């Protein structure tokens, strides 16, 4: 029989002592706000459980966030592919778009994962959640979205919202918000679901490696990364799209494109007058870029639509309205984010 490699074995293999491991667990537990007796249980569980259980629930979603997960990774520069993540580091025990089992068997898999990993699993959510008299406008297996979230969040150690909808309400919550959709953080604040440690990875969809890199940070460090005021990882949301835009030199020189294909646009001039929201949008589009570093929205020629910010759908003037406020980034030099590196398997 194959030896079962545990997280602790894996850490010992990397030269981490038993004592360090316990310390690591304590840090993990405290960063997740797990207290008292639970810390001991968590420590023991990490030592026997090999891969953290992940339950991914989709609510009022377009599945673009799951698709973005599938776009993640550049084998030349990182180990952030979805296949590496789900075959080697986490046990993706429920995911409606990728799961083999359906119906009762899928539901049983979710319930088993919750029971076996109660208090320890990671819940990932995408999509908004309708509330109030809209609650039953989104249902799965005879349960409302809100009911399903409430039930599943109970035993979660950490909730990761992937995408602007789960983070802040997003598209379904755009005016007039016909279904009274809310993000998970707001549901917690309103007392509609239990509060748990929370990480927001916003974007419509998020940059692929921002999803997997944030998960990798948790796996490697056993703790949440440093967060901004909207609970987004500073590593990826510390700078505005404008801060590191390849068109920035033209902005600074006062050179702007006035239409999509004028002489200015062809020379890469700044897209501010075409409605670019880069100056008040925090995201990694221009530092990490998209699709194995191929390009980014502003690089290719359309202004940033501001998709990682709350309420961006209701930006005054719409997609082509001009930004009048410039946010300040963290002041560090522009560089490709240093993704947490998963060990070689």
């Amino acid at each position, binding site marked *: 029989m194959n030896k079962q490699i545990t997280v602790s074995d894996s850490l010992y293999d990397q030269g981490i002592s038993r004592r360090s491991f316990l310390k690591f667990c304590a840090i993990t537990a405290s960063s997740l706000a797990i207290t008292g007796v639970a810390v001991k249980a968590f420590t023991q569980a990490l030592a026997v459980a090999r891969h953290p259980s992940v339950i991914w629930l989709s609510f*009022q979603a377009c599945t*673009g966030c799951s698709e973005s997960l599938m*776009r993640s990774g550049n084998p030349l520069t990182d180990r952030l*592919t979805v296949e590496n993540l789900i075959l080697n580091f986490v046990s993706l025990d429920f995911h409606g778009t990728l799961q083999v089992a359906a119906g009762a068997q899928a539901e049983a898999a979710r319930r088993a994962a919750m029971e076996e990993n109660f208090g320890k699993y990671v819940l990932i959510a995408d999509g908004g959640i309708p509330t109030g008299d809209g609650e039953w406008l989104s249902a799965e297996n*005879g349960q409302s979205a809100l009911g399903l979230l409430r039930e599943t969040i109970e035993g979660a150690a950490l909730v990761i919202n992937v995408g602007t909808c789960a983070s802040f309400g997003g598209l379904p919550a755009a005016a007039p918000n016909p279904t009274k959709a809310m993000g998970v953080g707001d549901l917690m604040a309103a007392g509609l679901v239990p509060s748990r440690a929370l990480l927001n990875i916003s974007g419509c969809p998020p940059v692929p490696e921002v999803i997997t890199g944030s998960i990798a940070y948790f796996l490697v460090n056993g703790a949440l990364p440093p967060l901004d005021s909207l609970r987004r990882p500073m590593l990826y949301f510390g700078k505005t799209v404008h801060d590191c835009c390849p068109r920035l030199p033209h902005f600074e020189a006062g050179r702007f494109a006035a239409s999509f*294909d004028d002489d200015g646009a062809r*020379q890469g001039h700044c897209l501010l007058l075409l409605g670019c929201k880069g100056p008040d949008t925090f995201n990694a589009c221009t530092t990490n870029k998209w*699709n194995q570093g191929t390009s980014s929205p502003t690089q290719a020629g359309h202004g940033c639509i501001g998709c990682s910010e709350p309420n961006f759908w209701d930006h005054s003037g719409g997609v082509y309205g001009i930004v009048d406020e410039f946010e300040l980034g963290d002041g560090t030099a522009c560089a490709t984010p240093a993704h947490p590196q998963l060990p070689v398997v």
Partner: protein
Amino acid sequence: MSTVVIDPITRIEGHLRIEAETDGSGMITKASASGTMVRGIEIILKGRDPRDAWAFTQRICGVCTVVHALTSVRAVENALGYAIPANARHIRNLMMGTQLVQDHVTHFYQLASMDWVNVVSASQADATATSNLQKCTSDWHNNSPAYFEAVRQKLAGFIASGQLGLFGNAYFDHPAYKLPPEMNLMLFAHWLEALEWQRKALRVHAVFGGRNPHPNFAIGGVPCTFNMSPNAAGVLVPALGTTGVDQTGLDLVQNCITDMREFVAKVYRPDALALGSHYKDWFGRGESLGNFLTFGEYPQNDNADISSSLFVPRGAIIGRNLSNVQPVDLRNPDEVQEFVAHSWYDYSMGKNTGLHPFQGETTLNYTGPQANYQNLDVNQSYSWVKAPRWKGNAMEVGPLARVLMMYATGNRTARDHVDRALRDLELPFSAMYSTMGRTLAQSIDAHLVADELQVWFNQLTANVAGGDFHTHNAAKFDPATWPATAQGVGFNEAPRGALGHWLTINGGMIENYQCVVPTTWNAAPRDAAGNGGPYEKALVGHVLAVPDKPLEVLRTIHSFNPCMACAVHLFDPLQNETLNVTVSA
């Protein structure tokens, strides 16, 4: 009689529930398909800038991430009589074609294949035998015993770990899995390869649209430019650059096209054929209606009416009659209509009327349960999906409809692909009207479009080489240039089938926006006359070998490639903004 409920249907986009009534032998006698999630995107669109609609409607679906954006900009351009440059047409065709090829491959491997491929069996396969199988299937380069042994060991190790993750609680002990171990291993290896492949292929969208998912679009053309800089005489000439599209970007697109064509020809097509050869009985079940509809795609010239020169033609086929392809007029109020007799909506003229999308209305009227439930009352309203009809007929849309339309209208390449496949399988043409026929047609659809990508790319580069760098027409981008009111229709052949957006502009704002979407056609509930949609009809007659493991249902439903977020949309006309929620008895 008993009712089998499958909810969630997994490995699809979105929220789909199937309730199937079976008789004593386990045969399905009646099936009801329910979309269980609604967002209200068209209500949200009302009063907004029509130039923004592509971004909102794009988020109807993040799987087919190009199709709604493209349909939306076409609807606005149709309303305004707004022509786009030839380069923009080529770039849109390249983005759309890339979307279709990637989506079909991803659907075949990541979403559908596990209905047929047994990964437990794969983990016990002989790597040398698998290598031999691969070598006689095609000249794909990943074919050594060492390669397949590495994949097998990875899989065996994963299974032995006891943490099965995505594969947990699946049906691999079901008697309906019939592939030999070597074929299971080969297809599982391709499941992994397809993940890597799709990431690379979609860089086409990043070059032209900045990212995937959800690349950028614009009315009047495409938002990307060819990168240029002034020469010694001050004239702008193509140049390498940090923005826009340059030669490096075009070379990357060429590489992606080459990779797509190779993977489709050497991996996907042979795999689809091999699957069919082992599951021939599935060429004899799963037909929906014999009615097929296409709106058409890939404009081939720059006429004002882009529907006049389509690579995939527009048309309707009724009752398998390929010799009579009927014309389709998207503006004719008597052709495309939507019904809500069994959907959670009200119509001002009554629930049994049908409305053309220009007159379309949607008033949410949820009458389903408001506490945890076991069953829906399928004699009442039971879905957020409406029931669209063409001249009163329920229609199947998608790759099978497209391939049949191309076959019927004399596309020689399409005919060759279909005839050769059926000859290899020793099957009659009627085998196309089935679950496995749909799967085969999907692979042919991908093959035809993948090869056409090269044609469009050559047209683009020839145009640029001739000195035409235009990618966007600014003439009508400013709403001040628009008429006071205008109506437009945008269309598309999305991976899952015919897609249309109907738009009314009033005073520079969206007054009315209605989408009729592929999965709305295919996943439709019954209409007022009690006629079911394609899913519902196709499932009747299926026998569940193991009643609590509904593998047979999954096979047929997955052959349609459902996209539920697309299917459920709503528009609220003018006055009816009230959300009515009625508690069921």
